[in-house]
């Protein structure tokens, strides 16, 4: 027998971005659980070896080990939720539970700093509000610090969505963001090396690149940017990324570096340089998946920089190419704004 050649085309699963994302979450959770099981097995084996060694020492020497002094990490104030998620607080930290159901957990951080380890559950909304800032997560590790005027959010693992009075942004592992605690204009997390003029296209990037006295290799520059981002030195990270792009414009990693540069600049409130970096990334990766993200992020950055016309035109371009894309809802809001 010979099936109709059209049969294969008729036999495709109903696939969607949402389904793809949910499945990815399940796989990530499965990998974590397998990792935990492996670590537990190793820990058990290690404990048995240690117990054997200890017994040998006790029997042989008959001198008990001196007690260990110091304060264990477990003595920090800790809030444990029903689903196993935890918040570890600094001494001045104050977090209250506003809501805790299977579908939604809502915490209100009133002061101090807290590090959240959230169990992955795609069916449950997990929200932390601090002042006017709200952080929405699925499963991740992140910290929220309430300062006098700002709320600082930094992500160790996974991805969170941070919303303040003006807009919503995604933060991924290694990124941090400083936002006004109560709706005032955002203050950069650290002062930029030089401020771009209000109207001209951003020259900050190029001047940052020129500031580097020597030219290390591309990999060294990226490693330097990574280290600076991890340490929260975003100006230094931006400088290294810009130097990389200036020195290695044809390197296949250049577009990714531009995208990261846009994220770094956006995180510290440098919206015009951020928009410029996303534009350059979109141009470098025209037609690729990163170009779509760069176009959407660029539209958000232009909007935040106050260049509404440019934001709308980028948003329209995104919607024309991807009417059902991941950023479509946000882009429609920009067009309607």
């Amino acid at each position: 027998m010979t099936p109709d050649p059209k049969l294969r085309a008729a036999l495709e699963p109903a696939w969607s971005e949402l389904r793809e994302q949910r499945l990815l979450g399940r796989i990530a959770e499965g990998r974590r659980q397998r990792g935990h099981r492996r670590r537990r097995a190793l820990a058990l084996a290690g404990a048995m070896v240690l117990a054997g060694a200890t017994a040998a020492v006790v029997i042989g020497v008959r001198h008990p080990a001196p007690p260990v002094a110091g304060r264990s990490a477990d003595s920090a104030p800790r809030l444990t939720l029903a689903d196993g998620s935890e918040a570890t607080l600094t001494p001045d930290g104050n977090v209250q539970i506003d809501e805790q159901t299977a579908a939604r957990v809502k915490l209100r951080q009133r002061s101090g700093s807290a590090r959240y380890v959230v169990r992955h559950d795609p069916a449950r909304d997990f929200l932390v509000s601090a002042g006017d800032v709200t952080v929405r997560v699925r499963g991740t590790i992140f910290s929220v610090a309430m300062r006098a005027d700002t709320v600082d959010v930094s992500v160790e693992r996974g991805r969170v969505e941070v919303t303040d009075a003006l807009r919503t942004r995604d933060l991924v592992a290694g990124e941090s963001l400083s936002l006004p605690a109560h709706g005032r204009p955002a203050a950069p997390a650290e002062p930029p090396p030089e401020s771009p003029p209000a109207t001209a296209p951003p020259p900050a990037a190029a001047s940052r690149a020129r500031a580097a006295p020597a030219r290390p290799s591309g990999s060294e520059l990226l490693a330097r940017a990574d280290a600076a981002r991890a340490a929260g030195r975003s100006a230094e990270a931006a400088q290294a990324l810009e130097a990389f792009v200036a020195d290695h414009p044809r390197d296949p990693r250049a577009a990714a570096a531009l995208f990261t540069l846009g994220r770094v600049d956006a995180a510290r409130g440098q919206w015009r340089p951020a928009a410029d970096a996303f534009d350059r990334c979109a141009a470098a990766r025209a037609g690729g998946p990163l170009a779509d993200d760069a176009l959407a992020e660029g539209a958000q950055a232009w909007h935040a920089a106050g260049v509404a016309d440019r934001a709308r035109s980028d948003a329209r371009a995104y919607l024309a190419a991807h009417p059902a894309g991941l950023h479509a809802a946000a882009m429609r809001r920009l067009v309607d704004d």
Partner: protein
Amino acid sequence: MNRMDLRASYPAAVVSDDATLVAQARAGSERAFEALYRRHVRYVAGVTYRLLGGDAEVDDVLQEAFLDAAGALAGLREPAEFRAWLVRIAIRRVYRRLARRRRWRWLQADIEVVSPPASDPQTRHRVHELYDALSRLPAKLRIPWTLHMIDGETLPDVGRLCEISVATAKRRIADAAARLDRRLRDA
């Protein structure tokens, strides 16, 4: 945060080949593994869907296949052949599912046919008949036949995907075709 996590924080879309992504994923890059997932999941979902004849178990099979792949990535000898390797892993999972289905059907004497939906009534009827007939075949015949006749895989590829020789693949496909012909003629 360790060094590897930081490197992983770069968007993976610039990496153009599977071999590079596999090398990064082996080194611990979650981002590279996610890029491999996004690159291949739809394709593997399509193959799995057609082999199983329905959507109900596709996500479970994909989850198991990607977890198996993550655990066995270090042993992948040809990183550039990641997709074929992943499909082989998914097919192993499909074998188990189809075998379990047949055992349950035998135990329960319940002939519930799992067949994919189709949009127009004529195709829907043909698809239902086909998958009804396929459900009577053992997995070792059903899977090579489906890969060859529906997915359009060549005989050598069917052999590689099912981890059998070309001669065995050819024999099984012919055996399956003969059985299907008989059953569809009688239907």
